[in-house]
């Protein structure tokens, strides 16, 4: 049954998927302000879900050697070094920043506008760390475009791939506004058989563990509770309180990402507290479900088809005249 908000806007995804009596929606609140970049989440995820290694290359991207979320990386910790002065050291030793003529977010690199309109100073050198994961969108385009029904909405409101149904068509890959879902590549060098080769892969929010009333592996392993698991509704309230607490402590950069049910994907099941603009962490600033305009497009296409038929008919009529 297609409802008004079935493809866009706030909705309860499990109910929308047809679960009459279902548990509260589950998700992650990842508080990046207390992430220490230990990567325990990456390791716990791989151990529990039998995800293979992703190669042994040093990327030179701070301490990130996992590259991105992909078929072999269902959790990914980003490391962002924001160079300013370190400590209170002699700033004269620094080379002056090169102006690339690009538009910047803040007019002055070291200033930030506070909610009350005053201008404060941004902190010194920062090393931001953030553990990324599938967002389990309220409106999940990957699921909408899946032709086999391999991707499905669980009773917990999460989105899961069924490995044995996926035919590897790959439609879901460009449909994801975050670039999360990915097909697993083979090991061409060794010709070794790889589990789920060619199949679309991503975080399942540990569906098997949820069914057994267990925390997902990453949240269980996180030492600082940067990754918090629970009912999305409760997590959203907790996140609001945390942002308020940080603002009170003068950390005005703190903001939430993905918590708003009115955003382009209807809010995400996995959302984040960030200390800078989403782009800094590699997140799209304003993601929109790629299937949002499907009804509109369908109407347009129908109208165009009708117009074309009408035109054709008219042209025939014209000839007679």
């Amino acid at each position: 049954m297609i409802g008004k908000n079935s493809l866009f806007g706030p909705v309860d995804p499990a109910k929308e998927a047809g679960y009459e009596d279902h548990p509260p929606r589950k998700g992650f609140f990842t508080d990046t302000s207390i992430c220490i970049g230990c990567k325990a989440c990456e390791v716990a995820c791989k151990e529990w879900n039998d995800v293979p290694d992703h190669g042994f290359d040093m990327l030179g991207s701070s301490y990130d050697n996992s590259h991105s979320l992909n078929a072999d990386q269902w959790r990914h910790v980003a490391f962002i070094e924001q160079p300013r002065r370190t400590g209170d050291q002699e700033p004269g030793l620094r080379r002056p920043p090169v102006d690339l003529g690009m538009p910047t977010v803040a007019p002055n690199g070291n200033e930030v506008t506070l909610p009350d309109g005053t201008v404060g100073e941004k902190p010194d050198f920062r090393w931001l760390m953030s553990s990324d994961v599938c967002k389990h969108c309220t409106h999940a385009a990957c699921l909408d475009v899946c032709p086999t029904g391999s991707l499905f909405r669980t009773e917990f409101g999460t989105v899961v791939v069924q490995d044995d149904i996926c035919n590897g068509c790959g439609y879901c890959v460009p449909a994801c506004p975050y670039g999360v879902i990915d097909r697993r590549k083979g090991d061409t060098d060794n010709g070794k058989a790889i589990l789920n080769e060619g199949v679309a892969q991503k975080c399942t929010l540990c569906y098997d563990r949820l069914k057994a009333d267990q925390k997902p592996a990453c949240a269980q392993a996180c030492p600082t509770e940067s990754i918090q698991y629970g009912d999305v509704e409760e997590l959203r309230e907790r996140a609001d309180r945390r942002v308020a607490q940080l603002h009170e402590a003068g950390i005005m950069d703190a903001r939430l990402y993905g918590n708003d049910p009115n955003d382009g994907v209807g809010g995400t099941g996995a959302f984040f507290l960030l200390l800078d603009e989403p782009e800094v962490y590699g997140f799209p600033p304003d993601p929109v479900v790629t299937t949002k305009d499907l009804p509109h497009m369908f109407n347009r296409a129908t109208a165009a088809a009708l117009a074309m038929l009408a035109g054709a008919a008219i042209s025939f009529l014209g000839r007679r005249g």
Partner: protein
Amino acid sequence: MAEAHPVGFQWVVEAKARGAKVIHVDPRFTRTSALADTFVPLRVGTDIVFLGGIINYVLQNELDFRDYVVHYTNAANIVSDDYRDTEDLDGLFSGFDPETRTYDPASWQFAGQERNGSDRQHHATQRETASALQHETHGMSLHADQPRDETLQHPNCVYQILKRHYARYTPETVAEACGVSQEAFLEVCEAWTKNSGRDRTTALVYSVGWTQHSVGVQYIRTGAILQLLLGNMGRPGGGIMALRGHASIQGSTDIPTLFNILPGYLPMPHAEQHTTLEEWVDSVRKPGAKGFWAKAGAYGINLLKAYWGDVATAENDFCFDYLPKITGDHGTYRTVLDMIDGKVKGYFLLGQNPAVGSAHGRAQRLGMANLDWLVVRDLFEIESATFWKNAPEIETGEIVPEECRTEVFLLPAASHVEKEGTFTQTQRMLQWREKALDPVGDCRSELWFFYHLGRMVRERLAGSTEERDRPLLDLAWDYPVHGEHDEPSAEAVLKEINGYDIATGRPLSTFNEMKDDGSTLGGCWIYTGVFKDGVNQAARRKPGKDQSWVAPEWGWAWPANRRMLYNRASADPEGRPWSERKAYVWWDEEAGEWTGHDVPDFEKTKPPSYRPPEGAEGVEGLSGDDPFIMQGDGKGALYVPQGLIDGPLPTHYEPVESPFRNPLYKQQGNPTRKQYDRADNRMNPSPPEEHSEVFPFIFTTSRLTEHHTAGGMSRYLEHLAELQPEMFVEVSPELAAERGLEHNGWCHVVTARAAVEGRVMVTDRLTPLRVEGRTVHQVWLPYHWGSGGMVAGDSANDLFGISLDPNVLIQESKVGTCDVLPGRRPRGAELTSLVAGYRHRAGVDTDVYPPIVTAGAGAVTDDEGNPTDNPSEADT
């Protein structure tokens, strides 16, 4: 802490959420700095200047917690008139003997006690046997009645000496020497002092890299002085916490894997000084001293009874003669050098990978390649088992696989989830581990290995009439075994460690029940109580939310389940909490006993007003306001007259390898350090020697979260190895520009010992510092890689030479000087000649070794404190 102890760091995060301010002092910006409120970078090896500067700030501004300092520390004690400070003698204390480079500590004693403790070992012997600190752990040999001036005005009282000693450690000096701005330094001073006092306490947390310096013990001492001055010891939220490098490192000192101590910190007997049981016990007990070591005889005899059971009787001194005795330096580095020299034939390595993890990797590998046999027990085939076929020395021709004489026995070990037993963590808490899985294949626990090894050796020797075999044959070596592999019972071992009454088998509840007549036995007196009432107390798992905030029913902490040592100091001299907010243990006048949230670390019914009768000694000699009950005088030691080889007060000495002259004294490095001058252990030159500019940069090493120490538990696992797949070297953008290093390209780091290559990581997390008027670059390397595993790479520890702290013989492996060159290092003979070329240019390729004593003429004094001629050349 976030980097190497991410799980423990959760509590810092929690404290932060509750308003705590976190300050991180480190040469480089790490994961910890990322979450700290304030990050202060400093030059490696200048910590005593930094902390000494804070001590000076406290003393100059009289910010010390005066009531605490007067009553609970030795600040009021008056020191001998003969004492001369480093301020007077250019970096040396009085009593220095330039021949042996050790001190006669007579002039360091408290007034009137200059010749006290005549049984003291000579410092030179103590340095060899790492036995000096026994005075510290066992309490100083001090008389109960010390001359004191509680107004702290006497010019020779400890407080005034401390004040003079640190007077030149000013914010300007800190900025000069450490490269820390005065603003950042003062911010730390203010934060620390404002958060200390009656209502507030500050914790000092360090990881054990802090100890790995030629002045390692004095680093910790500086922290201790500061925490005592500010009243942060023995109180909740205070203290000094040492984060250990592995699980149960605390346990491996309590029941030691060290050559100089026996279980429960009893000293290893010395062949010449402890010829009888009585001599040995008295060296611990120190007749006449105050404190709890008075019962050392019982502790020692119970240990001997645990070893030799029925054979140990009062008639044969409880088999004291069976104990192995030490004769000199048997430390790990001496042993490795002896292997190179062919003096050591066999070696056991258990869960240790010295080919990668110990300083001077080349010496480690060459030593192991010159043994008759080597036993390695580990989870994987680590480099210390494969050096004969894949060491870097194969390329240079120094090890030839076909000719390497060492027979290696690699035995697979069970992991921590495949065996039961205890871990003892940094709070001295024992936690019992259940076995989750049976080990696969031939993997076995350590307990299995040693029990059956002992059993088989004893079977081989059975019937021997040789006197030398008696200690082995008489051992009480009978533990119940179970399962198809005859696994010994770990609980039975824990029960023996706890101790029991021999006649009835009743487990002892406290070490006070230990008898010196042979009727009880116990393997480690401080662990007595862990099997109280026949219950494995270490296995308790009551959740924190179901008990008080001290959580006494989770695991078991020694001694006697006390969660905080010296907690008598959490109450004022009258026994009242210093403040409501910081109440922890206090005197209940009505009940006539000490009570509180924790088990009081004090005699339960000794009132605060108690004063010992004339001539009292041992426990009786402690006053009701002497909280530091293991110290010979019951006081916290701001000043240490006995027990430290390098001096009674921490003094800044430059690291053995430094590009800078000591800004405070002419004495450059620690004059008493242990050094092995050998052709295979060259040190880079430091001022005042010439050519230090050949190695212009400072390097330091530490860990990454992703790997575990020498990599034996991480480089062999795909899910960990992929997280940090290559050896790398962190440099600042400025150094990269200066040396032409390209981010993610290659570079190599060179010292007088080795050249090590890695990928370049150019990062703002490292910053050049301004020190003594010039810019200095610091380089950082992780030390996890070696030639084995899924991700191989050069080993950073190859860069270090061997020079040791004189007190405990720990190596200086956190600071050295180096050069950095772009590109990969050369291979084979070219590598050897590159390093040899550096040695030649640095002038360290001859048999002439630079003098260690660089203090000016007149710094060395005779017994009366008069200057004498210094045989070493004064510097210019």
